[in-house]
Protein backbone atom coordinates (compact mmCIF):
# COMPACT_ATOMS: atom_id res chain seq x y z
CA UNK A 1 0.00 0.00 0.00
CA UNK A 2 1.09 3.51 -0.81
CA UNK A 3 1.79 5.96 1.98
CA UNK A 4 -1.25 8.20 2.07
CA UNK A 5 -0.88 11.69 0.69
CA UNK A 6 -3.90 12.56 2.73
CA UNK A 7 -3.47 11.56 6.35
CA UNK A 8 -6.25 10.74 8.76
CA UNK A 9 -7.85 14.09 8.11
CA UNK A 10 -10.32 15.59 5.74
CA UNK A 11 -10.48 16.33 2.91
CA UNK A 12 -9.95 12.94 1.34
CA UNK A 13 -12.02 12.69 -1.80
CA UNK A 14 -12.01 16.45 -2.12
CA UNK A 15 -8.26 16.81 -1.50
CA UNK A 16 -7.64 17.48 -5.20
CA UNK A 17 -10.16 20.24 -5.78
CA UNK A 18 -9.09 23.70 -6.84
CA UNK A 19 -10.68 26.87 -8.08
CA UNK A 20 -9.15 26.24 -11.51
CA UNK A 21 -11.68 23.61 -12.52
CA UNK A 22 -11.30 19.86 -12.97
CA UNK A 23 -8.21 18.26 -11.45
CA UNK A 24 -5.90 17.30 -14.33
CA UNK A 25 -4.23 13.89 -14.57
CA UNK A 26 -0.82 15.22 -13.61
CA UNK A 27 -2.10 16.97 -10.48
CA UNK A 28 -4.21 13.95 -9.60
CA UNK A 29 -1.20 11.63 -9.86
CA UNK A 30 1.02 14.03 -7.94
CA UNK A 31 -1.50 13.86 -5.11
CA UNK A 32 -2.45 10.19 -5.09
CA UNK A 33 0.19 8.50 -7.25
CA UNK A 34 -0.57 6.55 -10.42
CA UNK A 35 -3.44 4.12 -10.69
CA UNK A 36 -2.28 0.77 -9.20
CA UNK A 37 -1.38 -1.67 -12.03
CA UNK A 38 -4.03 -4.18 -13.16
CA UNK A 39 -4.44 -7.15 -10.80
CA UNK A 40 -2.51 -10.05 -12.32
CA UNK A 41 -3.60 -13.05 -10.31
CA UNK A 42 -6.55 -14.41 -8.42
CA UNK A 43 -4.49 -13.99 -5.26
CA UNK A 44 -4.07 -10.24 -5.87
CA UNK A 45 -7.74 -9.90 -6.62
CA UNK A 46 -8.76 -11.75 -3.46
CA UNK A 47 -6.38 -9.64 -1.39
CA UNK A 48 -7.92 -6.39 -2.65
CA UNK A 49 -11.46 -7.74 -2.25
CA UNK A 50 -10.66 -8.60 1.36
CA UNK A 51 -9.26 -5.12 1.85
CA UNK A 52 -12.50 -3.56 0.51
CA UNK A 53 -14.50 -5.81 2.81
CA UNK A 54 -12.36 -4.86 5.78
CA UNK A 55 -12.86 -1.18 4.90
CA UNK A 56 -16.63 -1.71 5.19
CA UNK A 57 -17.20 0.62 2.27
CA UNK A 58 -20.93 0.95 1.66
CA UNK A 59 -22.69 2.34 -1.41
CA UNK A 60 -23.11 6.11 -1.38
CA UNK A 61 -26.00 6.17 -3.85
CA UNK A 62 -28.51 5.92 -1.02
CA UNK A 63 -28.89 2.24 -0.16
CA UNK A 64 -25.56 1.85 1.69
CA UNK A 65 -25.14 -1.74 0.52
CA UNK A 66 -21.65 -3.15 1.27
CA UNK A 67 -19.55 -2.85 -1.90
CA UNK A 68 -17.51 -6.01 -1.19
CA UNK A 69 -20.70 -8.05 -0.99
CA UNK A 70 -21.87 -6.64 -4.30
CA UNK A 71 -18.51 -7.37 -5.93
CA UNK A 72 -18.60 -10.96 -4.68
CA UNK A 73 -22.16 -11.40 -5.96
CA UNK A 74 -21.08 -10.24 -9.43
CA UNK A 75 -18.15 -12.67 -9.35
CA UNK A 76 -20.37 -15.56 -8.24
CA UNK A 77 -23.11 -14.92 -10.82
CA UNK A 78 -23.36 -16.46 -14.26
CA UNK A 79 -20.85 -18.69 -16.02
CA UNK A 80 -17.23 -18.52 -14.84
CA UNK A 81 -16.21 -17.11 -18.22
CA UNK A 82 -19.23 -14.83 -18.64
CA UNK A 83 -18.28 -11.28 -19.63
CA UNK A 84 -18.81 -8.96 -16.69
CA UNK A 85 -19.33 -5.21 -16.70
CA UNK A 86 -19.08 -2.17 -14.47
CA UNK A 87 -21.74 0.51 -14.57
CA UNK A 88 -20.74 3.62 -12.66
CA UNK A 89 -23.94 5.32 -11.61
CA UNK A 90 -23.59 9.08 -11.93
CA UNK A 91 -27.23 9.70 -12.89
CA UNK A 92 -28.02 11.52 -9.63
CA UNK A 93 -31.72 11.81 -10.40
CA UNK A 94 -32.65 13.40 -7.08
CA UNK A 95 -32.75 17.16 -7.79
CA UNK A 96 -31.88 17.85 -4.15
CA UNK A 97 -28.47 16.19 -4.57
CA UNK A 98 -25.48 17.67 -6.38
CA UNK A 99 -22.57 15.78 -4.81
CA UNK A 100 -22.06 13.21 -7.58
CA UNK A 101 -22.13 15.82 -10.29
CA UNK A 102 -19.72 18.02 -8.34
CA UNK A 103 -17.38 15.08 -7.73
CA UNK A 104 -17.35 14.11 -11.42
CA UNK A 105 -16.86 17.71 -12.50
CA UNK A 106 -13.97 18.49 -10.15
CA UNK A 107 -12.28 15.10 -9.71
CA UNK A 108 -12.96 13.08 -12.86
CA UNK A 109 -9.77 11.03 -12.54
CA UNK A 110 -10.60 9.86 -9.03
CA UNK A 111 -13.95 8.53 -10.27
CA UNK A 112 -12.35 6.94 -13.36
CA UNK A 113 -9.68 5.30 -11.17
CA UNK A 114 -12.48 3.76 -9.12
CA UNK A 115 -14.19 2.47 -12.26
CA UNK A 116 -10.90 0.89 -13.41
CA UNK A 117 -10.26 -0.77 -10.04
CA UNK A 118 -13.81 -2.12 -9.83
CA UNK A 119 -13.26 -3.48 -13.35
CA UNK A 120 -10.03 -5.18 -12.20
CA UNK A 121 -11.81 -6.73 -9.24
CA UNK A 122 -14.47 -8.42 -11.34
CA UNK A 123 -12.33 -8.94 -14.44
CA UNK A 124 -14.63 -6.67 -16.40
CA UNK A 125 -14.83 -6.70 -20.17
CA UNK A 126 -15.91 -3.07 -20.21
CA UNK A 127 -17.33 -0.23 -18.19
CA UNK A 128 -19.96 2.44 -18.66
CA UNK A 129 -20.20 5.67 -16.74
CA UNK A 130 -23.81 6.85 -16.80
CA UNK A 131 -24.38 10.56 -16.31
CA UNK A 132 -27.42 12.83 -16.45
CA UNK A 133 -28.04 14.42 -19.85
CA UNK A 134 -28.00 17.95 -18.41
CA UNK A 135 -24.79 17.57 -16.37
CA UNK A 136 -22.78 19.19 -19.16
CA UNK A 137 -19.98 20.44 -16.91
CA UNK A 138 -19.33 16.97 -15.48
CA UNK A 139 -19.62 15.39 -18.92
CA UNK A 140 -16.96 17.62 -20.45
CA UNK A 141 -14.67 17.14 -17.44
CA UNK A 142 -14.96 13.36 -17.81
CA UNK A 143 -14.53 13.45 -21.59
CA UNK A 144 -11.36 15.46 -21.23
CA UNK A 145 -10.13 13.18 -18.46
CA UNK A 146 -10.73 10.07 -20.58
CA UNK A 147 -8.64 11.58 -23.38
CA UNK A 148 -5.92 12.60 -20.95
CA UNK A 149 -5.59 9.12 -19.51
CA UNK A 150 -6.02 7.14 -22.74
CA UNK A 151 -2.32 6.17 -22.77
CA UNK A 152 -2.11 5.41 -19.07
CA UNK A 153 -5.19 3.20 -19.34
CA UNK A 154 -3.84 1.10 -22.21
CA UNK A 155 -4.39 -2.60 -21.56
CA UNK A 156 -7.44 -1.93 -19.44
CA UNK A 157 -11.06 -2.32 -20.56
CA UNK A 158 -12.56 0.80 -22.09
CA UNK A 159 -14.79 3.12 -20.08
CA UNK A 160 -17.60 4.57 -22.11
CA UNK A 161 -19.45 7.74 -21.13
CA UNK A 162 -23.22 7.49 -21.68
CA UNK A 163 -25.82 10.14 -20.94
CA UNK A 164 -29.19 9.15 -19.49
CA UNK A 165 -32.44 11.16 -19.29
CA UNK A 166 -32.76 13.71 -16.50
CA UNK A 167 -35.37 11.84 -14.59
CA UNK A 168 -35.61 11.17 -10.90
CA UNK A 169 -35.96 7.46 -11.59
CA UNK A 170 -32.94 7.25 -13.94
CA UNK A 171 -30.61 6.47 -11.05
CA UNK A 172 -32.60 3.42 -9.94
CA UNK A 173 -30.27 0.62 -10.97
CA UNK A 174 -32.56 -1.46 -13.18
CA UNK A 175 -34.04 1.71 -14.74
CA UNK A 176 -30.49 2.85 -15.41
CA UNK A 177 -29.70 -0.43 -17.17
CA UNK A 178 -32.81 0.01 -19.31
CA UNK A 179 -31.59 3.53 -20.24
CA UNK A 180 -28.20 2.11 -21.24
CA UNK A 181 -30.00 -0.32 -23.55
CA UNK A 182 -31.58 2.68 -25.23
CA UNK A 183 -34.92 2.46 -23.46
CA UNK A 184 -36.82 4.74 -21.12
CA UNK A 185 -35.91 4.81 -17.42
CA UNK A 186 -38.22 2.03 -16.22
CA UNK A 187 -37.33 -0.21 -13.27
CA UNK A 188 -37.96 -3.91 -13.55
CA UNK A 189 -39.21 -6.54 -11.15
CA UNK A 190 -36.71 -9.14 -9.84
CA UNK A 191 -33.38 -10.26 -11.41
CA UNK A 192 -30.87 -7.84 -9.85
CA UNK A 193 -28.02 -6.38 -11.96
CA UNK A 194 -25.41 -8.73 -10.54
CA UNK A 195 -27.31 -11.53 -12.29
CA UNK A 196 -28.63 -9.72 -15.35
CA UNK A 197 -27.02 -6.37 -16.00
CA UNK A 198 -25.45 -4.69 -18.98
CA UNK A 199 -26.00 -6.79 -22.16
CA UNK A 200 -27.69 -9.32 -19.90
CA UNK A 201 -24.40 -10.16 -18.16
CA UNK A 202 -23.34 -10.01 -14.49
CA UNK A 203 -22.79 -6.34 -13.75
CA UNK A 204 -21.61 -4.21 -10.88
CA UNK A 205 -23.76 -1.09 -10.66
CA UNK A 206 -22.17 1.28 -8.22
CA UNK A 207 -22.49 4.95 -7.39
CA UNK A 208 -19.64 7.20 -8.56
CA UNK A 209 -18.79 8.42 -5.05
CA UNK A 210 -18.50 4.84 -3.86
CA UNK A 211 -16.06 4.16 -6.69
CA UNK A 212 -14.02 7.26 -5.78
CA UNK A 213 -13.66 5.89 -2.23
CA UNK A 214 -12.61 2.56 -3.75
CA UNK A 215 -9.86 4.36 -5.68
CA UNK A 216 -8.40 5.59 -2.39
CA UNK A 217 -8.85 2.31 -0.49
CA UNK A 218 -6.98 0.46 -3.26
CA UNK A 219 -4.06 2.85 -2.73
CA UNK A 220 -4.00 3.44 1.00
CA UNK A 221 -5.79 0.42 2.49
CA UNK A 222 -8.64 -0.34 4.85
CA UNK A 223 -6.82 0.78 8.00
CA UNK A 224 -6.30 4.22 6.54
CA UNK A 225 -9.97 4.36 5.51
CA UNK A 226 -11.08 3.50 9.05
CA UNK A 227 -9.04 6.27 10.62
CA UNK A 228 -12.09 8.42 10.02
CA UNK A 229 -15.64 7.66 11.02
CA UNK A 230 -16.92 5.08 13.45
CA UNK A 231 -16.03 1.39 13.58
CA UNK A 232 -19.32 0.43 12.02
CA UNK A 233 -19.38 3.22 9.49
CA UNK A 234 -15.83 4.21 8.68
CA UNK A 235 -14.64 6.83 6.26
CA UNK A 236 -16.05 10.04 4.93
CA UNK A 237 -19.12 10.89 2.90
CA UNK A 238 -20.10 13.65 0.50
CA UNK A 239 -23.18 15.65 1.36
CA UNK A 240 -25.11 18.40 -0.41
CA UNK A 241 -26.08 21.14 1.99
CA UNK A 242 -28.93 23.32 0.67
CA UNK A 243 -31.35 25.89 1.89
CA UNK A 244 -30.76 28.29 4.77
CA UNK A 245 -27.00 27.79 5.11
CA UNK A 246 -24.70 30.78 4.69
CA UNK A 247 -22.50 28.77 2.29
CA UNK A 248 -24.58 26.03 0.70
CA UNK A 249 -22.55 23.51 -1.25
CA UNK A 250 -21.06 20.05 -1.41
CA UNK A 251 -19.07 19.06 1.66
CA UNK A 252 -17.04 16.05 2.65
CA UNK A 253 -17.76 15.04 6.23
CA UNK A 254 -16.57 12.31 8.52
CA UNK A 255 -19.21 9.62 9.06
CA UNK A 256 -20.73 10.29 12.45
CA UNK A 257 -19.92 14.03 12.43
CA UNK A 258 -22.59 16.14 14.12
CA UNK A 259 -24.90 17.97 11.73
CA UNK A 260 -24.25 21.08 13.80
CA UNK A 261 -20.55 20.93 12.93
CA UNK A 262 -21.39 20.77 9.22
CA UNK A 263 -23.69 23.77 9.52
CA UNK A 264 -20.95 25.67 11.38
CA UNK A 265 -18.47 24.78 8.64
CA UNK A 266 -20.95 26.19 6.12
CA UNK A 267 -20.82 29.55 7.89
CA UNK A 268 -23.81 28.78 10.09
CA UNK A 269 -27.50 28.90 9.36
CA UNK A 270 -28.67 31.93 7.41
CA UNK A 271 -31.89 32.12 9.47
CA UNK A 272 -33.46 30.40 12.48
CA UNK A 273 -34.26 26.85 11.40
CA UNK A 274 -37.60 25.10 11.56
CA UNK A 275 -36.54 21.65 10.27
CA UNK A 276 -34.01 19.76 8.17
CA UNK A 277 -34.73 17.38 5.31
CA UNK A 278 -32.26 14.54 5.65
CA UNK A 279 -31.40 12.16 2.79
CA UNK A 280 -33.11 13.79 -0.17
CA UNK A 281 -36.61 13.49 -1.59
CA UNK A 282 -36.81 9.87 -0.47
CA UNK A 283 -35.59 10.92 2.97
CA UNK A 284 -37.35 12.48 5.90
CA UNK A 285 -37.85 15.72 7.80
CA UNK A 286 -36.43 16.17 11.25
CA UNK A 287 -37.45 18.95 13.65
CA UNK A 288 -34.75 21.58 14.22
CA UNK A 289 -34.64 20.79 17.95
CA UNK A 290 -33.80 17.18 17.08
CA UNK A 291 -31.58 18.15 14.15
CA UNK A 292 -29.19 19.83 16.58
CA UNK A 293 -28.50 16.40 18.06
CA UNK A 294 -28.17 14.20 15.02
CA UNK A 295 -24.91 12.80 13.74
CA UNK A 296 -24.33 11.96 10.10
CA UNK A 297 -24.23 8.18 10.12
CA UNK A 298 -26.94 5.65 9.33
CA UNK A 299 -26.66 3.80 12.60
CA UNK A 300 -27.67 6.90 14.57
CA UNK A 301 -30.05 8.27 11.94
CA UNK A 302 -31.97 5.00 11.57
CA UNK A 303 -33.01 5.23 15.23
CA UNK A 304 -34.98 8.32 14.21
CA UNK A 305 -36.37 6.70 11.08
CA UNK A 306 -33.90 8.65 8.95
CA UNK A 307 -30.89 7.85 6.79
CA UNK A 308 -28.12 9.59 4.86
CA UNK A 309 -29.76 8.47 1.62
CA UNK A 310 -28.48 10.50 -1.29
CA UNK A 311 -26.57 12.72 1.14
CA UNK A 312 -28.84 15.76 0.99
CA UNK A 313 -29.36 18.06 3.95
CA UNK A 314 -31.87 20.79 3.26
CA UNK A 315 -32.13 23.47 5.93
CA UNK A 316 -35.64 24.85 6.20
CA UNK A 317 -35.83 28.33 7.76
CA UNK A 318 -38.66 29.24 10.14
CA UNK A 319 -40.19 31.70 7.69
CA UNK A 320 -40.72 28.98 5.08
CA UNK A 321 -43.59 26.50 5.09
CA UNK A 322 -42.42 22.89 5.38
CA UNK A 323 -45.81 21.67 4.24
CA UNK A 324 -45.69 23.75 1.06
CA UNK A 325 -42.16 22.46 0.37
CA UNK A 326 -43.36 18.90 0.90
CA UNK A 327 -46.41 19.46 -1.33
CA UNK A 328 -44.11 20.45 -4.20
CA UNK A 329 -41.85 17.46 -3.55
CA UNK A 330 -44.78 15.04 -3.49
CA UNK A 331 -46.13 16.48 -6.74
CA UNK A 332 -42.67 16.11 -8.26
CA UNK A 333 -42.37 12.50 -7.07
CA UNK A 334 -45.80 11.71 -8.53
CA UNK A 335 -44.82 13.22 -11.87
CA UNK A 336 -41.44 11.49 -11.91
CA UNK A 337 -42.75 7.99 -11.15
CA UNK A 338 -42.25 5.40 -13.86
CA UNK A 339 -45.98 4.67 -13.69
CA UNK A 340 -45.62 0.94 -14.18
CA UNK A 341 -47.09 -0.28 -10.88
CA UNK A 342 -50.74 0.36 -10.00
CA UNK A 343 -50.41 1.41 -6.35
CA UNK A 344 -47.71 3.98 -7.23
CA UNK A 345 -49.47 5.18 -10.40
CA UNK A 346 -52.75 5.78 -8.55
CA UNK A 347 -51.42 6.46 -5.07
CA UNK A 348 -48.82 9.15 -5.69
CA UNK A 349 -51.14 11.57 -7.55
CA UNK A 350 -53.84 10.90 -4.93
CA UNK A 351 -51.33 11.78 -2.21
CA UNK A 352 -50.17 14.95 -4.00
CA UNK A 353 -53.84 16.03 -4.50
CA UNK A 354 -54.89 15.29 -0.95
CA UNK A 355 -51.80 17.00 0.47
CA UNK A 356 -52.51 20.18 -1.50
CA UNK A 357 -56.18 20.15 -0.50
CA UNK A 358 -55.19 19.69 3.13
CA UNK A 359 -52.78 22.60 2.80
CA UNK A 360 -55.59 24.78 1.46
CA UNK A 361 -57.83 23.81 4.34
CA UNK A 362 -60.29 21.94 2.08
CA UNK A 363 -59.97 18.67 3.97
CA UNK A 364 -60.29 19.98 7.50
CA UNK A 365 -58.78 17.77 10.15
CA UNK A 366 -59.45 14.58 8.16
CA UNK A 367 -56.69 15.26 5.62
CA UNK A 368 -53.82 13.78 7.58
CA UNK A 369 -55.71 10.59 8.39
CA UNK A 370 -56.42 10.04 4.72
CA UNK A 371 -52.79 10.79 3.85
CA UNK A 372 -51.55 8.15 6.30
CA UNK A 373 -54.00 5.69 4.78
CA UNK A 374 -52.63 6.41 1.30
CA UNK A 375 -49.04 6.12 2.55
CA UNK A 376 -49.82 2.62 3.80
CA UNK A 377 -51.37 1.75 0.43
CA UNK A 378 -48.24 2.56 -1.58
CA UNK A 379 -45.53 1.50 0.88
CA UNK A 380 -43.49 -1.49 -0.42
CA UNK A 381 -45.96 -2.15 -3.20
CA UNK A 382 -43.86 -1.17 -6.20
CA UNK A 383 -41.19 -2.93 -8.25
CA UNK A 384 -38.71 -0.35 -6.97
CA UNK A 385 -38.51 1.71 -3.78
CA UNK A 386 -39.95 4.89 -5.31
CA UNK A 387 -43.30 4.60 -3.47
CA UNK A 388 -41.54 3.67 -0.20
CA UNK A 389 -39.39 6.79 -0.31
CA UNK A 390 -42.41 8.96 -1.07
CA UNK A 391 -44.32 7.42 1.85
CA UNK A 392 -41.35 8.08 4.14
CA UNK A 393 -41.22 11.75 3.12
CA UNK A 394 -44.98 12.11 3.59
CA UNK A 395 -45.09 10.50 7.03
CA UNK A 396 -42.15 12.54 8.29
CA UNK A 397 -43.81 15.77 7.11
CA UNK A 398 -47.07 14.90 8.89
CA UNK A 399 -45.12 14.18 12.08
CA UNK A 400 -42.69 17.10 12.07
CA UNK A 401 -45.13 19.73 10.80
CA UNK A 402 -48.11 18.57 12.89
CA UNK A 403 -48.50 22.07 14.37
CA UNK A 404 -48.59 23.71 10.93
CA UNK A 405 -50.94 21.01 9.68
CA UNK A 406 -53.49 21.89 12.32
CA UNK A 407 -53.21 25.56 11.45
CA UNK A 408 -53.63 24.88 7.73
CA UNK A 409 -56.64 22.61 8.32
CA UNK A 410 -58.41 25.59 9.91
CA UNK A 411 -57.04 28.54 7.97
CA UNK A 412 -55.79 27.37 4.60
CA UNK A 413 -52.63 28.75 3.01
CA UNK A 414 -50.08 30.55 5.20
CA UNK A 415 -47.70 33.40 4.26
CA UNK A 416 -44.88 30.82 3.97
CA UNK A 417 -46.81 29.01 1.24
CA UNK A 418 -46.49 32.05 -1.01
CA UNK A 419 -42.75 32.49 -0.44
CA UNK A 420 -40.06 31.46 -2.89
CA UNK A 421 -39.45 27.68 -2.65
CA UNK A 422 -36.39 26.67 -0.63
CA UNK A 423 -35.77 23.73 -2.95
CA UNK A 424 -36.13 24.43 -6.66
CA UNK A 425 -37.54 21.32 -8.30
CA UNK A 426 -38.17 22.59 -11.80
CA UNK A 427 -36.08 22.63 -13.86
CA UNK A 428 -35.26 19.21 -12.56
CA UNK A 429 -31.84 20.21 -11.31
CA UNK A 430 -30.58 23.24 -9.46
CA UNK A 431 -26.95 23.95 -10.33
CA UNK A 432 -26.80 27.15 -8.31
CA UNK A 433 -23.97 28.29 -6.06
CA UNK A 434 -22.00 25.18 -5.33
CA UNK A 435 -19.17 26.95 -3.60
CA UNK A 436 -15.89 25.15 -4.17
CA UNK A 437 -14.25 27.16 -1.43
CA UNK A 438 -17.10 26.23 0.86
CA UNK A 439 -16.45 22.58 0.19
CA UNK A 440 -12.79 22.99 1.03
CA UNK A 441 -13.37 24.85 4.23
CA UNK A 442 -16.03 22.42 5.24
CA UNK A 443 -13.86 19.50 4.41
CA UNK A 444 -11.05 20.84 6.51
CA UNK A 445 -12.83 22.17 9.50
CA UNK A 446 -14.88 19.07 10.19
CA UNK A 447 -12.02 17.12 11.59
Amino acid at each position, binding site marked *: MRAPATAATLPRLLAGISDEGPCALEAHQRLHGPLPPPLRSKRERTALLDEVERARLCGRGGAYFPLAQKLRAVLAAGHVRAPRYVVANGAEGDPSSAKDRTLMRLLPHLVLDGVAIAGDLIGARGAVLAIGADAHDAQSALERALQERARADEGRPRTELVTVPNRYISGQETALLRCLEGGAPLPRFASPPHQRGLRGQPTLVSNVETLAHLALIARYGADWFAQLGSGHEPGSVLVTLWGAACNPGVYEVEQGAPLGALIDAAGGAAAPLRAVLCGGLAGGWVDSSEAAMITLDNRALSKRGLGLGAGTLLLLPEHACGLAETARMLRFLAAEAAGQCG*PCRHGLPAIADCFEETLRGHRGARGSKRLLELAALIDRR*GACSHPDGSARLLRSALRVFARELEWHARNGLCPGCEAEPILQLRPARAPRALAISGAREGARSLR
Partner: protein
Amino acid sequence: MSKQRLIVDPISCDAHGICAELLPELIATDEWGYPLLSEQHVPAELLALARQAVRSCPRRALLLAAQREKRA
Protein backbone atom coordinates in the same frame (compact mmCIF):
# COMPACT_ATOMS: atom_id res chain seq x y z
CA MET B 1 -41.36 -29.03 1.51
CA SER B 2 -40.41 -25.45 2.01
CA LYS B 3 -43.03 -22.92 2.99
CA GLN B 4 -44.40 -20.76 0.24
CA ARG B 5 -45.84 -17.30 0.11
CA LEU B 6 -47.66 -15.31 -2.52
CA ILE B 7 -45.97 -12.44 -4.27
CA VAL B 8 -47.17 -10.19 -7.05
CA ASP B 9 -45.17 -8.70 -9.88
CA PRO B 10 -46.56 -5.15 -9.53
CA ILE B 11 -45.48 -4.19 -13.04
CA SER B 12 -47.44 -7.00 -14.69
CA CYS B 13 -50.47 -6.77 -12.40
CA ASP B 14 -53.41 -5.02 -14.03
CA ALA B 15 -55.95 -5.23 -11.21
CA HIS B 16 -58.14 -7.92 -12.78
CA GLY B 17 -58.97 -9.09 -9.27
CA ILE B 18 -59.49 -12.77 -10.07
CA CYS B 19 -56.94 -13.78 -7.42
CA ALA B 20 -58.84 -11.95 -4.67
CA GLU B 21 -62.10 -13.62 -5.71
CA LEU B 22 -60.53 -17.06 -5.61
CA LEU B 23 -58.58 -16.61 -2.41
CA PRO B 24 -60.15 -13.96 -0.16
CA GLU B 25 -58.52 -15.66 2.82
CA LEU B 26 -55.10 -14.40 1.69
CA ILE B 27 -55.79 -11.67 -0.87
CA ALA B 28 -57.72 -8.43 -0.43
CA THR B 29 -57.85 -5.59 -2.91
CA ASP B 30 -57.05 -1.93 -2.41
CA GLU B 31 -59.29 0.93 -3.49
CA TRP B 32 -57.93 0.75 -7.04
CA GLY B 33 -58.41 -3.02 -7.33
CA TYR B 34 -54.79 -4.10 -6.86
CA PRO B 35 -54.14 -7.09 -4.62
CA LEU B 36 -53.04 -6.74 -1.01
CA LEU B 37 -51.33 -10.01 -0.17
CA SER B 38 -51.12 -11.61 3.21
CA GLU B 39 -47.53 -11.62 4.45
CA GLN B 40 -48.02 -15.10 5.94
CA HIS B 41 -46.93 -18.35 4.39
CA VAL B 42 -49.71 -20.08 2.49
CA PRO B 43 -51.22 -22.70 4.86
CA ALA B 44 -51.32 -26.25 3.50
CA GLU B 45 -55.12 -26.33 3.20
CA LEU B 46 -55.09 -23.27 0.92
CA LEU B 47 -52.18 -24.31 -1.27
CA ALA B 48 -54.37 -25.86 -3.99
CA LEU B 49 -56.48 -22.69 -4.20
CA ALA B 50 -53.35 -20.55 -4.22
CA ARG B 51 -51.98 -22.52 -7.17
CA GLN B 52 -55.28 -22.07 -8.96
CA ALA B 53 -55.14 -18.31 -8.32
CA VAL B 54 -51.62 -18.24 -9.75
CA ARG B 55 -52.77 -20.11 -12.86
CA SER B 56 -55.85 -17.95 -13.27
CA CYS B 57 -54.08 -14.60 -13.37
CA PRO B 58 -54.50 -13.33 -16.95
CA ARG B 59 -51.29 -11.31 -16.59
CA ARG B 60 -49.27 -14.11 -14.95
CA ALA B 61 -48.49 -11.55 -12.24
CA LEU B 62 -49.19 -13.71 -9.20
CA LEU B 63 -46.42 -16.01 -8.06
CA LEU B 64 -45.83 -18.58 -5.36
CA ALA B 65 -42.31 -18.21 -4.04
CA ALA B 66 -40.32 -20.28 -1.60
CA GLN B 67 -39.19 -17.16 0.21
CA ARG B 68 -39.42 -13.42 0.00
CA GLU B 69 -38.19 -12.19 -3.38
CA LYS B 70 -35.39 -9.72 -3.25
CA ARG B 71 -36.63 -6.45 -4.66
CA ALA B 72 -34.75 -4.74 -7.46
